[in-house]
C-alpha cells in the first residue's frame, strides 16, 4: 500500500552502509578529577558529601542532585562493601557468547549513597548478593586515573 508502485524483486532493494563514529576524550570533570587523582595516587576511594541532605555520593558529584548544593567536601569510602545485586553476563560487550559467564555486581558501602557497578572477581557459582567485598586496585604504576584502575571487587577476608 501507500505508494502507487512497489518493488517485488528483492534483489533490487539496496542498503547503504556507514557509521556515526568519532574518537572521544571525556574529561572526568571537577568531582571526577578529585576522585581519580586520589585513586591513582593513593588508591583511595572518595565520596562527595552533601551536608544539607546528609548524603555522601558515590560516584562523587560536584553538586547534590537533590538540593543543588555545590559539593566540595570529600570523605573516604569504607574499605569493605556489600554486594547488593548480581548478574552473570553470558555474553561480552558486543553480545558474543562467553565460554564462562562473567559475574557483575552492584556494591554498596555503609553510610554511602550510591555505590559502584563493577566486575565481581569470584567464580560464577560463588557470585551472590550479601557478599562482603573490597576493591582490588591495580598496582600504582599501571593506574591511569580511570574507573578501570579498579580491577573489580573481591571477597573481603575477615
Amino acid at each position, binding site marked *: 500500500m501507500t505508494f502507487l508502485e512497489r518493488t517485488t524483486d528483492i534483489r533490487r532493494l539496496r542498503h*547503504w552502509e*556507514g*557509521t*556515526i563514529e*568519532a*574518537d*572521544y*576524550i*571525556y*574529561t*572526568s*570533570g*571537577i*568531582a*571526577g*578529577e578529585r576522585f581519580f587523582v586520589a585513586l591513582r595516587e593513593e588508591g583511595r576511594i572518595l565520596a562527595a558529601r552533601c551536608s544539607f541532605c546528609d548524603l555522601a555520593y558515590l560516584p562523587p*558529584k*560536584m*553538586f547534590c*542532585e*537533590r*538540593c*543543588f548544593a*555545590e559539593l566540595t567536601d570529600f570523605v573516604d569510602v569504607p574499605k569493605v562493601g556489600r554486594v547488593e545485586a548480581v548478574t552473570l553476563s553470558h555474553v561480552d560487550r558486543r553480545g558474543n557468547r562467553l565460554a564462562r559467564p562473567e559475574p557483575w555486581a552492584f556494591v554498596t558501602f555503609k553510610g554511602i549513597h550510591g555505590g559502584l557497578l563493577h566486575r565481581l572477581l569470584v567464580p560464577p557459582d560463588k557470585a551472590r548478593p550479601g557478599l562482603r567485598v573490597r576493591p582490588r586496585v591495580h598496582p600504582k604504576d599501571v593506574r591511569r586515573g580511570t574507573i578501570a584502575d579498579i580491577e573489580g571487587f573481591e571477597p573481603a577476608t575477615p
Partner: protein
Amino acid sequence: MIGAGMTLFRRRLQETGKELCYEAARMALDSAGLTLADVDAVVSGSAPDAFDGVHMKGEYLLDGAGGYRKPYVRVFTGGGTGVFSTIAGWWHVASGLADVVLVVNEEKMSSCQPHAQSVFAHIWDPILDRPLQPNLVWIFAMEMNRYMTVHGVKKEDIALVAVKNKRNAVDHPCAQLADPKITVEDVLKSEVMAWPVQRLDISPPSDGASAVVLASDEVIRKRRIKDRAWISGVGWCIDSTMWTDRDLYFPQYVARAAKMAYKMAKIGDPRREIDFAEPYDPFDYKELHHLEGLLLAKKGEAPKLTREGVTQRDGDLPACPSGGLMGVGNPIAATMGQKIGELFWQLTGQAGKRQIPHEVRTGVSNGWGDLMQYGSVVVMRA
C-alpha cells in the same frame, strides 16, 4: 522569564556536561531567587549527541540540569535548539502544567576528536551527500555565496558583522573570541576555509552551558519578582529535508517562524515595533540573512543597515549586542546564553557594559539549524 545564567564559553572546559549544566542552572536559579525545590519541570536543550559523545545525552545531563525526580524532557532542533528550548519551556508554563520551569542548554564540543566538525560529517543524507565527504563549512559557503550573488553583496559588508560582534563581545564576561581591535581588513585577510568563508567569518566551537528560569505570571506576582521579562511571541518552523531543491538566498522557514511569533505578539510592523535583535550568527553573513528572515530588513537590505551603523549597539536596531556567537562563542544549544539570556538581561536593564544606551522594550531572537532548514523565534517584552 525571571532568571538566567551561563558558564564561560571556551574551546575546552574541564567540567563534564552535567557539571556545566549545573553551573548554569544554579546561576539562573540564584539570580531568580529560587531553589531547585521551586522548580516544577525541567527542559533540556542540547544539540547532536555526537558532540558530547553520549547516546541519549538528555538522560546523561539530567541531574546537572536539575531533573532529578522531576518531569524532564529534552528537545532538539539542531542549531535551532538554542532558542527552541525556551519555546518548549514556554508551553510547559502556558499550558498550566507547570508554574516554574528551568530550561538548561549544554554543549561540550571538545570531547569530539579529531575536531568537533567531524560530527557534521554525519548530519548529511547518507546516500545523497555523505559519499562526497562534506565538511560543515560547505553549508555556509554555499548559502553565503548564493546570498552574496543574488543580492550583489560584498564581502566587506559581511565582514562588518564579524567586526561588530567581536567588538561587542569585549563587554561579555563569558566571551571566547572578543577582539577590541579587529578590523574588516583582518577578516578579509584571514585564511580561506571554504570560499567565500574565511576563518574570521566563523564562530568557534566551544564548551559551555546556559540556563533560564520561566515562571507563570501568578508566581511572579505572588513573589513580587521585579527583574522579569515576558515571552510575548513564539514561532518555529522546519523546511523540507531536500535542501538541494530550494533557493538558499532567503530563509523562508525563519520568516514563517517569525510571522508566527509576531502574530502571537501582535506585532504588525516588526521593523518599527522591535527595538533590538539577537539574530543567530554562527557565521557573520547569517546575521544579515536572519535580519531579513526576521523581516527586520527587506531582502538584500541588511548589509546596508549594517554599513550605516543601524545595527550597532547604539544604533536604531542593535543586533547582537551580546557579541553573538561570532564573539562570545558557539557551543551550539548553549548559545541560549546570548540569544535568550541577552534579551532577558537587556530588557531588565542588567546587561551591564553591554546595555543598549537607549530604552528598549521589545526584543527578538532566533535560532537556526538542521540542514539550513530550521527557524525558531522568540519575542520578549520588558
